């Protein structure tokens, strides 16, 4: 045995160490185990992270009001959308404040305050602004933030078809 030990210690001097049988076995078994672990592992991981791969279901346009009813004064309009949440489908009611700008174009604002998510209302304080009841955030008629909030109110995509206003996805404000 002592012969064997001396033999090994001289071997260590050489820069490239030979792989022993034991190491070879360990690497092979470890590699195989890792490979096999992928088969039960991958389906579970893909299963769990599916939300990352879901296409955001873009909302269909919803007919909400006749074009003729919209004036320069913002008007609160409630409408229902079809919402799919996995296996659960529902029709929540959304609110839009719709008005015309100076050149007569119709636009619709989402009343969700950009400060902390309360619901703003038009002209409660008589300032011709959107007011938030929670922390007194204020917005212009274009949705531009005046105080408290640090972003303008979101807009709905708007289309006017055959004299009716249709609303779509909520998008970042392009006016303010």
């Amino acid at each position, binding site marked *: 045995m002592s012969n064997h030990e001396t033999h090994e210690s001289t071997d260590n001097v050489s820069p490239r160490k030979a792989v022993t049988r034991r190491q070879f076995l360990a690497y092979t078994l470890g590699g195989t185990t890792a490979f096999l672990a992928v088969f039960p592992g991958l389906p579970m991981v893909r299963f769990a*992270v*599916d*939300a*990352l791969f*879901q296409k*955001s*279901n873009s909302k269909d346009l919803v007919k909400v009001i006749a074009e003729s009813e919209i004036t320069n004064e913002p008007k609160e309009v409630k409408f229902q959308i079809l*919402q799919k*949440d*996995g*296996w*659960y489908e529902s029709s929540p009611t959304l609110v839009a404040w719709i008005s015309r700008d100076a050149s007569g174009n119709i636009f619709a604002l989402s009343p969700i305050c950009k400060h902390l*998510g309360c619901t703003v209302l038009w002209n409660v304080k008589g300032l011709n602004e959107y007011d938030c009841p929670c922390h007194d955030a204020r917005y212009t008629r274009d949705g531009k933030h005046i105080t408290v909030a640090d972003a303008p109110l979101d807009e709905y995509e708007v289309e006017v078809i055959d004299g009716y206003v249709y609303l779509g996805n909520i998008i970042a404000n392009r006016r303010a």
Partner: protein
Amino acid sequence: MMFKKVYNWIDERLDITPLWRDVADHEVPEHVNPAHHFSAFVYCFGGLTFFITVIQILSGMFLTMYYVPDIINAYASVDFLQHQVPFGQIVRGMHHFGASLVIVMMFLHTLRVFFTGSYKAPREMNWIVGMLIFFIMLGLGFTGYLLPWDNKAYFATKVGVEIAASVPYIGEYIAALLYGGEIVGAQTLTRFFAIHVFFLPGLLILLLAVHFIMIRRQGISGPL
């Protein structure tokens, strides 16, 4: 008598005495024993955290006998188990108030370890494991809060996920993983339920085992 006979019968065959001796039979140093110095009660917070954790696991197991993680029925099932089932108020009360108590005890335990300097070498790894346990406990609190599916639960989760979504670059992916969809909804509830009753408790028990094995290996830190 009977118990002793049964115990001996098993012990002869499996030699179980060293097993439980290892777990239960060890000296408690004087400086951590409140019977010697009353101020040593600060050393009890870790054990109290574990005690309440055990109560959380047990009461939680019993709550799932009635609870369903479904947006139509979740609130009704909680209402039923609390108000219609005998002792429901007690069992849910244990889980509800215990949840806060765990955090309090764990925090006091952390303070004790910090101010006695027990986290220093050679116990650095146990401090890190303790921190992981801390965050798992917070995760349990966050996911459990949604399960009653009332207004408070809904908005707390909405705010919580929005905070997670504000992380630079990866925030929206974290939010999508937490939502399981695009809103706090049916898929969020089932997901939080799974995380709350399987994933985090499994991880917690594993880390607690590591925590306790390490404290047994290294012993309790010396007196100040």
